[in-house]
């Protein structure tokens, strides 16, 4: 197996199957134990840490800056607590339900409990990558996937920020992870999963993370209702400086999210990385331009929101689109999300406080469908096999619909259960006082 390290860089992103080049070599590799490469392992450890950085403090600060002073700590707290809770649940049963076989039939939708409490996983266990015969340590894979499970429910808190009960966030997160996130992750990413089998492409979690959280956020905003004073009082962000810091941390952390999803330190990771630079850059500029043309001024919050929309949109296509395709995807996402956030939300009148649906839901759908187009080899993409744009877009569409329905129905039920057990919303007095004092007994800034 000494030749493998030499071959890997040469095969690059398209080294999905050695069989394309040399059938004998492939059989040889399949027979042998998978190779664990220190370079791959290092990259995946770094990526894991980057995704944690993206969540705490990145997402927390991005959201925190957008709420009013009196609710700053509640948002930071919710993101931090969600991250901590999901980490534990992931080790207890999350990883097992998402990434083990659930057996005949039900296995298309959910895994089993064979690795509950990480049973049987040792430092010698490995998880497969996209290259036959190349693996990474299973603990690395578990930790990397843990960070995805953590950020997804953390994204939702933006939708019902400034009025949700803290206990409701915690209960809903546990339920939602179990009954919505884990099945979707299993369906999309595990080899026996239903959407995986359909051939739906989701490189780094456009459906699993973004559509999923965006729709759950929208439903939360609808069920919990508008903030007091919405549409009447000044509900302006208390610190766009912190929102800027958070947006930048999100962008940097997203390199771990997208390029890490390649699972190997190869040209494929480099492709995902450059796409993760170009798409948000294009989307930020698109948002900024449309905003300047319709409102007269280009705002910092606008370009930052656009960049996040671009990051969301490129997520499912990160390792599949060519660089030019990612720019197009970014431009579309930036412009469409602008209208979703400024026009559609106001027209429909729901209070998605921090635009989880407008950016993650809408951007996620654009990315998921768009992946079917930009992955086409004829357009400079890296889709494999006999690629049909129409066929792939249809498959992507089906995957989006299934995700929408699953997370839509699941979220409604889980919000209702949460409401029955602890109640979703704080009292009016508490909301006026601010969640920092009402729920946490402290305030963010003591001048």
């Amino acid at each position, binding site marked *: 197996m000494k030749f493998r390290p030499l071959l890997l860089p040469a095969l690059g992103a398209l080294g999905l199957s050695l069989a394309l080049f040399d059938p004998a070599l492939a059989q040889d590799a399949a027979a042998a134990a998978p190779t664990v490469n220190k370079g791959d392992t290092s990259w995946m450890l770094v990526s894991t840490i980057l995704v944690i950085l993206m969540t705490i403090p990145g997402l927390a600060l991005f959201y925190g800056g957008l709420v009013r002073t009196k609710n700053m700590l509640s948002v930071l707290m919710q993101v931090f607590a969600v991250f901590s809770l999901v980490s534990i649940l992931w080790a207890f049963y999350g990883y097992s339900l998402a990434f083990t076989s659930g057996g005949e039939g039900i296995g298309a939708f959910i895994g089993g409990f064979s690795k509950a409490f990480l049973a049987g996983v040792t430092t010698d266990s490995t998880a497969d990558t996209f290259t036959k015969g190349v693996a990474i340590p299973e603990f690395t894979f578990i930790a990397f996937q843990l960070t995805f499970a953590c950020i997804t429910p953390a994204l939702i808190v933006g939708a019902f920020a400034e009025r949700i009960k803290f206990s409701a966030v915690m209960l809903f997160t546990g339920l939602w992870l179990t009954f919505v996130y884990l099945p979707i992750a299993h369906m999309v990413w595990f080899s026996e999963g239903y959407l995986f089998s359909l051939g739906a492409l989701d490189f780094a979690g456009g459906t699993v993370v973004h559509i999923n959280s965006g729709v759950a956020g929208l439903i939360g905003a609808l069920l919990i209702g508008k903030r007091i004073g919405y549409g009447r009082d*000044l*509900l*302006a*962000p208390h610190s766009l400086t912190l929102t800027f810091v958070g947006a930048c941390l999100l962008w940097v952390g997203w390199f771990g999210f997208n390029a890490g999803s390649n699972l190997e330190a190869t040209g494929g990771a480099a492709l995902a990385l450059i796409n993760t630079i170009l798409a948000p850059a294009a989307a930020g500029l698109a948002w900024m331009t449309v905003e300047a043309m319709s*409102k007269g*001024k280009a*705002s910092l*919050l*606008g370009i930052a*929101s656009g960049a996040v929309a671009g990051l969301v949109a490129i997520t499912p296509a990160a390792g599949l689109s060519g660089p030019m395709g990612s720019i197009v995807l970014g431009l579309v996402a930036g412009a469409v999300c*602008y209208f979703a*956030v*400024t*026009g559609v*939300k*106001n027209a429909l009148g729901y209070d998605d406080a921090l*635009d989880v649906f*407008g950016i993650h839901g809408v951007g996620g759908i654009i990315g998921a469908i768009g992946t079917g187009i930009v992955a086409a080899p004829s357009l400079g993409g890296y889709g494999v096999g006999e690629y049909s744009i129409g066929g792939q877009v249809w498959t992507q569409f089906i995957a989006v619909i299934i995700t929408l329905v699953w997370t839509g129905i699941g979220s409604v039920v889980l919000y209702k259960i949460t409401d029955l057990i602890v109640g979703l919303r704080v009292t009016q007095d508490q909301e006026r006082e601010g969640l920092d004092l009402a729920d946490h007994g402290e305030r963010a800034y003591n001048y």
Partner: protein
Amino acid sequence: MKIVMAVIKPFKLEEVRDALTALGVHGLTVTEVKGYGRQKGHTEIYRGAEYAVSFLPKLKIEVAVASELVNQVIDAITAAARTGQIGDGKIFVTSLEKAVRIRTGETDVDAL
């Protein structure tokens, strides 16, 4: 004795202070305030949500002076704080019954 209270544009504070110091006024209280007069506010837009901000940030200065100094103080503030644009602010004068310097117990004009 009189209290001269003026609401001025924030960036005019240093000029007003210098003008008052030149008159021999050696004490001044400054408060950050918000309010509106004839000057219109502005619009802030956050992700398409437009807010009309009609209360503008101003500084309120308060100075206690001997009655015979009042007109000079008013003139000094007027000259220093004026830009000629709408929103330059206003000056209000009220009577002051008593003043005490806490450290020494001096009263009235001696305390100013």
